[in-house]
Structure formats: structure tokens, C-alpha cells
């Protein structure tokens, strides 16, 4: 098994003459249309096949080392789960046992009947028999899931009251079931895949899994039982060999299936395609990919093995795929139209990996949220521009196949070609919200402060939304969303949580007793630091439980020295140790609220603290209180390039970073600050009472983390950017800035050049990330109904631009109609 690595380029998969680009484009359009149409289903099935196979294996391996149990569980799934190849598919490998389905997951938590019922109301479907079977399976998993095991550490009221409060989302209901519900996901690897990592796909594409197996076998022979680790190493290496072998077997099942289908296929063109699929699956991922087509299939099999994970990332796809593309192109084996078709097929494959979770988590990650991030552009390890033809083709594929996934992040540096910016913004213009733009300068600086060597730092990738990782060398734990305004709420009630009435925080004193703002701010910071330290404890419990329950030989062997280290990736120290992070949501609301207090109560003395508190408790209801709210709204706010308000935002983010850096993680090292929000600003807002920034109880918090609260920034995008750049973002592993534009503000190439200049200016000022929401008709209608929330929405008229909400209804209607006209 270990000496069969063949040299490349000796035996090509497709000796057929190339069709012309025109022929391909026509056929490809039809293919992509057909494949895309199948993504739209009325109901997403939730299946029990995978959990049944996992449970079967777990039961058979009771008492064995966890790493081997997990390898055997994976092997059982890959050997037995239903596989299928859909019509028109070029890249094969199904994500669940039925098309567009998710599989119940045994790792996160238990699915109770009420959670399953809620799932059914939300567009998912299960069969009666499956539900009954799941009940039996649940019995086995009680206390063995992540949530169940974590709950065993929350006996202490101090921790338990914190978990119930939802300061870290979502609030827990019971120690056994957490917030309720488990996960149900697509992807056939071991779960739950909460760690954000960069896996070394290039290693599989270039060397093949047989090479990894051979290395593991060789390493096994070298072992001498002279220390305690040796025994564990044997278990680990055996697990790697078993799991990687199971993946090869899984690919061969597809080869056989493709051959069977080819035999019965009457259409000669499809017959040919199926034969080719069979030939490719015979080869990859076991052996090195010979060409681009092999590489795409090999990548997909491995991606399926690293999911379920909402945060699986492809890494620098345009970099490690480029040699395959270039070789084929130079040899005349492929053309751009074919590459484009394959890249679109890959987008569609990724759309087939769905996921859902319990009610509370569904709110936190609204929709079928996932962050399968493809990184393109940026600099090479040497510091040169890394943009290549594939970078453009990846963007082009998103333009031709505008699905919400996979997402794309463009790394921007001073030498990023303007052409790449233009192409990226053309995709943004379609309204799909991608690509996102990140700054090489800020991310590389961050990595250097973490001790990463420059060449390595330059090779960083995006995982999750915007979390930085180094392929094979770092990892980030899943972490809670810390609702900063809820911490403020607790502070304003002297440590009492508004929802549970429990003493969650410290007793820092009654609000009206503070004689000056500085005293108040110091007390708030004390409260915040305390709650952060409890959040860090919570993270550490989660980290240890994951280490215990979820070793994964597949992902571990794709990390640096994955074989020689001889340990699961969670049991080793990584070169860049960014294991635990603390992530504040709604910090801008806290900054605005404190600024309002400072201005209104202490500086201008327009109202007393007691009056403000009464108005807040009344949720601003009543004429008198509404008047106070208006005064609060009139106070300076972050996002307007006003130093008075921006200073506090900077100060709070700095404080957060400083405290985070003092808190230990269970993996060794300190916590790292990050600031990304996903959709937590909605459930986080729901838990938080009215805040002094003029926000109503339950209202959404500010989105993003450096974006201003909606409606509070009134000076346009340049002022918002200047405010954001006053926050020192370097200590942060990630920050998130959203901006809204109407499509007419991105109409001409000249418009795109100006937007590109806006992005580059922000990054020059130290900004980390920027993404654009080019608004659609639905948003415009919402803006018409609630203009106060859409003040910053810029629309292009003719000859000049205007703010949408300042327009009369007739014109608004006209623009809405116009937008519809622009929609493709």
C-alpha cells in the first residue's frame, strides 16, 4: 500500500479532443441551471442514517481508546452510508444520505421531541420511523454529547447562573440539554467540526492519501516503547491508517457506482462523463491528482471528510490549485470555460452541505448559515502579489452561479491589481454580498504580534467568517458570542441579570451613586472583566470536553507534522496557539450608551441618572420617556467621525483586548480577542433591555463589530470608515464592518474604482475587513417602512446620488421598480 505513488502526467484522465469554448459554454449553462434548480427544495429532509451508523460503531467499540473508536465510526459510515450520483454532476460525493438533506448529529446535543417538532415547522421533514429510531439512539448519547458533558461542570451557581443568563449565547435551559436541540448537518466526516482550522489540502492533492498512510505505517515501525506517549502514538497512527483507508474505499464506492450508471446510460455524452468520473474516483484521493479535474474531485472528497463543519475552509484555493490549472492549460488539456464549469459545480456541491440546529442556535446563526470560505489574492510568502488567473475564475464562477455559498474572501494589499478589485466589485454588485475584503496589512501585523514568522504570516487564510489561520499550524476553538450590552444591562442593575433575576455579575454599586463618569466607567470595566473571566472559564470547559470527546484522525493528519507528532491536533501544542478567543457582540451599543450617559448626565447635565433609569425601565413608553429617548438619540454617536463618541469605542475595544490577553486557555497560552457577530445581534438584542443609546428593549444590536448602529451614522460611508479606523484593530484576530449600498451606486466601472479606493483607504488606515450589502428591493421596501433604520442608504439618482429615505414615496417607488428591473 505504501509504494504505489505514481509519477504524475503519465496517464491523463481525458484524452478526448477538447470541445470549443462556445460549445462548452452552451452545454455548461444548461448543466449548471439544472444542478442549481435542484438546490431549491420545499423541505430539507433530516435523516438518521449517519447517526445510526455512528452509534452502531460506538456501541461496538465501548472501552477502546477514543481515537480508534472515532476512526471506526467514520469507517462504518463511509462503508455503509447511501451514496448517489445525480444527473449532470461532474464532481461527485454526496453530503447526506438523501439529496439536500442533513443528518442528525450525535456530537453536540440531544434532539428532544419539542425541538424536532420545531424543526418540522421550520422547513425540515423527518419520517415517523426515523423519529422513533432517533428516540432510542438518544438514550445512548445522553451525557455523552458536548452539551451533556459540559453541563456536568456547571454545578456551581456562579457558573450556572452565567450560563442561564445568555451573556454567552444562547441561554441554557437545563444542565443536561443546554439551550436545547442538537445539530443536524451535511458532510460525512466526523463532527462536530467546531474548530476553525486550515487543513493542508495541497498535501492530499500532490501526495495522495496513500502517502499519508505510508508515512503512518513507517512511523509505526519506528516506535520504541520508551515513554508514555508511545502507546498513545500507536493508537493514533492506527486510527489515521484506518480512517484514511476508509476514505479511499469511499471514493472507490463512487467509482463503482459511476461504472454501473455508465453501463445503463443511453446518452453517449453522459456515458462518457460517468466513465471519466469512475476513472477519476479510482485514483483520487488515494493517489496524487494528475490534472485540474482530478484535483477538484480530490479536494471535494477531502472537504466532505472535514465536514460537518460550518466553518470548514478551502484556504488559498487559487494558490494550491493553480499549478494543476496552469499545467493543463499549457498542455492544451483544458480551457477556461471548462474550469469555470467545474468551479460552478463546486459551488453547487457546497450548497448541498446544509445544516441546522436547535431553536436557540438557529437564531444565533439565522438561515442555513455556514462559512465555507475560499481565500483568494493577497501576497505570496515572498511578499509579491499572488493574484493569478484562477483568482479571477473563482470570482467569475460566483458571478455566473450566484449562490450564497461557498463564500469568497479577497485578500487586499498595496499591490493588489485594480483589475482584481474591479472584478470583485462586479460580483459584489450582483447583490450576493461577496466577496468580502480583508487587509493583508492588518492581518499580517496581527500574526507578527503573535510571533508568527513573516513568510508564514503572509500565507494566512480565512476560516469561518474572518478568522485568521495558518494552514496546518493553528486552530481556533468555537466560542460563545458574548453579548456586551447585556453585560452593561447587568452592570446597570448592580449585577442582576434582567431576564433570570439571578445575581450573575459582581455588585459594582447602584448606578445613581456614581459621582462622575470616570468612576462609572471604571466600575463597568470591573464588571465586564469579571464576566469575561467567567466566559473564559466556560470556553475552557468546552475546550476540554472537545479534546476528550472529539479526537479526529483525518483532520489531525492534515496538520503540520501530523504523522510524526503522533497525537490528535487537540492534544498537541500548535506553532500558532490561538485556541481560545473572546468575542464581544454589540460593543458599539455599549460605546454609544456610555457616550450618551457621559454627555447627557455628566457633561451637559440635561437629565439625571434616575430619570434616565426610569425611562429605560419603562422601555421609553410614554411621552415623557420618549422625550428622554430623543435626547439620548441626539447625543454624539459612533460612526460619524466624531472623536467624542469614537474615543469610547476605541477605549472599550482596547480594554477588551487587554483583558482577553490575560486569560488562560485550556490548550495553553492566552485567549485572543476577536470581534465578529454572525447574526447574534438579533438574539443578543432580544435578551437585552432598553439601552441608553436610544435602543428599545429586544431591538437588534448593532451588526458587525466596527459597523455603526443602524440609523445612528448620518455622515455617510467615509465618516463611518474614519470612526472604525480610530479603533485599534491590530490586537484583534478579526473585526467586521458591513456597509450598505444601492446597486446604482456601483453602476459604472468608474463607480467601482471609487469604491475600490474607499476599501483601500480604510485598509491604509488600519481597517481589517469590509463587506458590502448591495441592497435589493426587499430592503428598499423595508427602508420605506422604517426610514429611521436606513438613513445611510445611498441611492444613485441621475447625475448625483441621494439618501433613499430623503426621497418622496413616488421616487422611492420608482427606484424600487428600477431595482427590480436591474435584477437578473
Amino acid at each position: 500500500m505504501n509504494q504505489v505513488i505514481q509519477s504524475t502526467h503519465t496517464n491523463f484522465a481525458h484524452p478526448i479532443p477538447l470541445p470549443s469554448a462556445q460549445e462548452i459554454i452552451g452545454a455548461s449553462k444548461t448543466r449548471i441551471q439544472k444542478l442549481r434548480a435542484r438546490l431549491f427544495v420545499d423541505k430539507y429532509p433530516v435523516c438518521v442514517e449517519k447517526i445510526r451508523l455512528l452509534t452502531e460503531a460506538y456501541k461496538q467499540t465501548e472501552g477502546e481508546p477514543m481515537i480508534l473508536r472515532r476512526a471506526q465510526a467514520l469507517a462504518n459510515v463511509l462503508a455503509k452510508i447511501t451514496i448517489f450520483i445525480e444527473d449532470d454532476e461532474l464532481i461527485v460525493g454526496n453530503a447526506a444520505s438523501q439529496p439536500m438533506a442533513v443528518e442528525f448529529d450525535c456530537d453536540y446535543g440531544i434532539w428532544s421531541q419539542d425541538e424536532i417538532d420545531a424543526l418540522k415547522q421550520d422547513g425540515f421533514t423527518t419520517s415517523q420511523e426515523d423519529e422513533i429510531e432517533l428516540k432510542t439512539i438518544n438514550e445512548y448519547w445522553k451525557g455523552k454529547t458536548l452539551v451533556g458533558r459540559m453541563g456536568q461542570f456547571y454545578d456551581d451557581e456562579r457558573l450556572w447562573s452565567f450560563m442561564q443568563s445568555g451573556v454567552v449565547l444562547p441561554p441554557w435551559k437545563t444542565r443536561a440539554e443546554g439551550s436545547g436541540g442538537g445539530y443536524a448537518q451535511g458532510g460525512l466526516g466526523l463532527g462536530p467540526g467546531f474548530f476553525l482550522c486550515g487543513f493542508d489540502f495541497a498535501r492530499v492533492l500532490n501526495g495522495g492519501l496513500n502517502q499519508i498512510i505510508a508515512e503512518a505505517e513507517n512511523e509505526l515501525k519506528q516506535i520504541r516503547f520508551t515513554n508514555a506517549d508511545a502507546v498513545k502514538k500507536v493508537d493514533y497512527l492506527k486510527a489515521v491508517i484506518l480512517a484514511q483507508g476508509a476514505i479511499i474505499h469511499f471514493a472507490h464506492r463512487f467509482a463503482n457506482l459511476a461504472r454501473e450508471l455508465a453501463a445503463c446510460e443511453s446518452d453517449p455524452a453522459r456515458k462518457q462523463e460517468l466513465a471519466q468520473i469512475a476513472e477519476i474516483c479510482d485514483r483520487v484521493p488515494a493517489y496524487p491528482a494528475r490534472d485540474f479535474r482530478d484535483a477538484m474531485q480530490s479536494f471535494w472528497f477531502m472537504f466532505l471528510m472535514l465536514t460537518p463543519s460550518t466553518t470548514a475552509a478551502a484556504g488559498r484555493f487559487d494558490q494550491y490549485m493553480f499549478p494543476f490549472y496552469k499545467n493543463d492549460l499549457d498542455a492544451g488539456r483544458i480551457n477556461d470555460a471548462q474550469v469555470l464549469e467545474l468551479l460552478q459545480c463546486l459551488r453547487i456541491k457546497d450548497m448541498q452541505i446544509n445544516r441546522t440546529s436547535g431553536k436557540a442556535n438557529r437564531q444565533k446563526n439565522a438561515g442555513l448559515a455556514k462559512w465555507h470560505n475560499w481565500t483568494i489574492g493577497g501576497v505570496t510568502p515572498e511578499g509579491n502579489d499572488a493574484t493569478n488567473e484562477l483568482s479571477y475564475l473563482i470570482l467569475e464562477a460566483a458571478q455566473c452561479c450566484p449562490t450564497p455559498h461557498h463564500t469568497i474572501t479577497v485578500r487586499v494589499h498595496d499591490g493588489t491589481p485594480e483589475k482584481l478589485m474591479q472584478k470583485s466589485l462586479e460580483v459584489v454588485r450582483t447583490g450576493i454580498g461577496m466577496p468580502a475584503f480583508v487587509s493583508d496589512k492588518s492581518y499580517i501585523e496581527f500574526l507578527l504580534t503573535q510571533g508568527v514568522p513573516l513568510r508564514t504570516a503572509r500565507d494566512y487564510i480565512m476560516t469561518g467568517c474572518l478568522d485568521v489561520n495558518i494552514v496546518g499550524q493553528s486552530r481556533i476553538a468555537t466560542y460563545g458570542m458574548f453579548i456586551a450590552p447585556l453585560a452593561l444591562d447587568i452592570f446597570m442593575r448592580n449585577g442582576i441579570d434582567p431576564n433570570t433575576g439571578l445575581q450573575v455579575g459582581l455588585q459594582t454599586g447602584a448606578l445613581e451613586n456614581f459621582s462622575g463618569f470616570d468612576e462609572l466607567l471604571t466600575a463597568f470595566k470591573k464588571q465586564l472583566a469579571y464576566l469575561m473571566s467567567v466566559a473564559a472559564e466556560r470556553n475552557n470547559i468546552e475546550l476540554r470536553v472537545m479534546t476528550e470527546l472529539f479526537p479526529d484522525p483525518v483532520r489531525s493528519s492534515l496538520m503540520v507534522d501530523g504523522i510524526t507528532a503522533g497525537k490528535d491536533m487537540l492534544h498537541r501544542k500548535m506553532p500558532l496557539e490561538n485556541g481560545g478567543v473572546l468575542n464581544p457582540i454589540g460593543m458599539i451599543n455599549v460605546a454609544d450608551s456610555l457616550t450618551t450617559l457621559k454627555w447627557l448626565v455628566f457633561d451637559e447635565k440635561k437629565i439625571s441618572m434616575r430619570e434616565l433609569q426610569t425611562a429605560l425601565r419603562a422601555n421609553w413608553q410614554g411621552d415623557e420617556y420618549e422625550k428622554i429617548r430623543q435626547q439620548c438619540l441626539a447625543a454624539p454617536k459612533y460612526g460619524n467621525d466624531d472623536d467624542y463618541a469614537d474615543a469610547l469605542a476605541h477605549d472599550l475595544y482596547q480594554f477588551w483586548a487587554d483583558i482577553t490577553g490575560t486569560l488562560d486557555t485550556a490548550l495553553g497560552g492566552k485567549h485572543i480577542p476577536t470581534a465578529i457577530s454572525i447574526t447574534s445581534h438579533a438574539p443578543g438584542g432580544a435578551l437585552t433591555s432598553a439601552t441608553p443609546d436610544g435602543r428599545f428593549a429586544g431591538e437588534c444590536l448593532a451588526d458587525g463589530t466596527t459597523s455603526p448602529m443602524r440609523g445612528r451614522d448620518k455622515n455617510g460611508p467615509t465618516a463611518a470608515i474614519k470612526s472604525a479606523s480610530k479603533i485599534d484593530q491590530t490586537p484583534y484576530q478579526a473585526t467586521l464592518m458591513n456597509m450598505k449600498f444601492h446597486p446604482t451606486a456601483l453602476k459604472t466601472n468608474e463607480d467601482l474604482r471609487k469604491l475600490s479606493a474607499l476599501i483601500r483607504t480604510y485598509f491604509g488606515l488600519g481597517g481589517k475587513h469590509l463587506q458590502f450589502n448591495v441592497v435589493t428591493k426587499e430592503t428598499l421596501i423595508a427602508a420605506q417602512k422604517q426610514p429611521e433604520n436606513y438613513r445611510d442608504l445611498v441611492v444613485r439618482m441621475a447625475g448625483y446620488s441621494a439618501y433613499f429615505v430623503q426621497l418622496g414615496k413616488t421616487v422611492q417607488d420608482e427606484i424600487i421598480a428600477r431595482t427590480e428591473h436591474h435584477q437578473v
Partner: protein
Amino acid sequence: MTDERDTRGVIFNVQHYSIHDGPGIRTTVFLKGCPLHCLWCQNPESQAVRPELFFNAERCQGCAKCVDVCPEHAIEIVDGKSRTNRAVCKTSGECAQVCPNDARNVMGKYVTAGQVFKQVSADAIFYQRSGGGMTISGGEPLTQPQFAISLLKLCRDAAIHTTIDTCGYATWDSARRVLENVDLVLYDFKHMDPSAHKKLTGVSNELILDNAKKIVRELSLPMFARVPIAPGLNDSLTNLRATAQFIATELGDSVKVHLLPYHRLGEAKYERLEKPSQSISIDPPNDERVFELQKIFESFGLTTIAGG
């Protein structure tokens, strides 16, 4: 020596990230006051120099808070909406302060050039990256020459690129003093026939066309010609050919042309100024028509962009 910062003027808006008023990312300062009264005016709130009350009836809930605070007792509630007696209103702005629904706004405020410059220079870093700067628009900037000059000089001293968007209706002497401080001129051509021009805008066009020639010939300033397209009013082929002819032969083909199709922005604004009688209703031209007109200008060798 007087400090340019202290010069006072009336503006009705400062718009950041203006991307259609000249090169790069710009900040556009809208000055109040205009000697023309174009039938299709998109910014009727800019015509009078002094601040005016802007009333958005759609937003008014008839809560009567404004009635109580008006120092002139000029407001009453009629049919559930507040109504202002404009003959009595002195634009104190008290009503706008208390209106909870943002239905009442005062358009226009007195400012110093220094205050406006502070807002403009805040975005200097964006101008540097994009090749942008400040655009003075209106209204008609030439109606407040001293204020315009001060603002332009402050920008020039700070190396900020300056553009003016003008209809060109001012004495040459006054116009020249302003334009000497400008890097680029956006110049409006509304109609070539003097009597038609008077009918559409209230003034004849001789002075305007004469000034256009002087800007190019005497001041050698780069110019973008802006041609509004108001169907049925100025979009005859004869007129647009004459416009193109004038630009190409009298100003030269280095002048770029921006065609600005009429849109309904101004119509709602007339209602808010409670001057509905002055509002006209024209259907905006369709894309095909604009494309056809663009071809005319291009046939004269002029670089032409539709939609500005």
C-alpha cells in the same frame, strides 16, 4: 487680512462620498440660492437663498407638538395634519426641533466657510487615494461668490481638488473671481435657443454661453458639460444638435458631456415646500431615447456619458 474661515454663507447639505460630481470620491457642498427657476428643477429647496421650512406630509401624525412651540403661532392642525401659514412663518425652526416624526425640517442653515471646510477636509485621505476633492453645487454657487471663494481658497491651501457645478448665470467679473479658484467646472447647458431658455429657466442664455466660452478660452479650465434631458421641454433633436455643435466648435472636444435624464426627485420636494403649483409632471426618458441622444453628441466627436 480677513480670514477666509469667517466668511458666512447658506448651505442646505454637505454630502460625503459623492461619486457622481467630478473625479474620485468627493464631498459636495450644496449652496442655497439660484437665479434660475428651471421647470424641471430637482432641488427646488435650493432656489431661495434664505432657509425654508420643508414639510413631509406623509410623515406628519398630527400630534400638534409643533403648534405649541411655534413663536409666530403659524401652525394649526387641519384634517389630522399640521398646516403652516407660510406668510407668517419666520423659519425659526422650533417646530423641526420637536417633531417626533421627522416631518418638519428647515432646509438651509447659516454657516461659516471654516465650519464647512472642517467637514470637507475630514475626508482628505479619501481624496488622496481616489483623486477626488470638493465639489460646490447648489442651488447656484455663483449666487454666494464670497462664500464660494473662501471655501475654494481654503481647499486649495490644503491641496484639495476643487470642482464647481454651475449654470454660469453671473456677471463675468463675479464668475471669474470664483472660477479662478477652481480646478474643474461642471457646466449646465439647458437650451440653446435664448427665448426657449427664458421660458424654461426664467432667464436668457446669452450670458451663460458667453461665460462658457470665457471659462475655456480665458481661464483654460477643464470642463464637463452637463445636459439635462427633460422630455418635451429641451430634448428636441434640433436643440441637442445645436448644443453639441456649440460645445464642439466653441469649447472644443476636450469637453466631456454628461447627459442627465430627468427624474422625479423634485416633484415631491415641491410638495414639501408647499408650492405644488410649481411642480410639473414629466415622464423620465427611457434608456433607448437617452442612447439615441448620446449618439448625437458622439457624432460631434464628444466623449459622452449618459446618466452622468
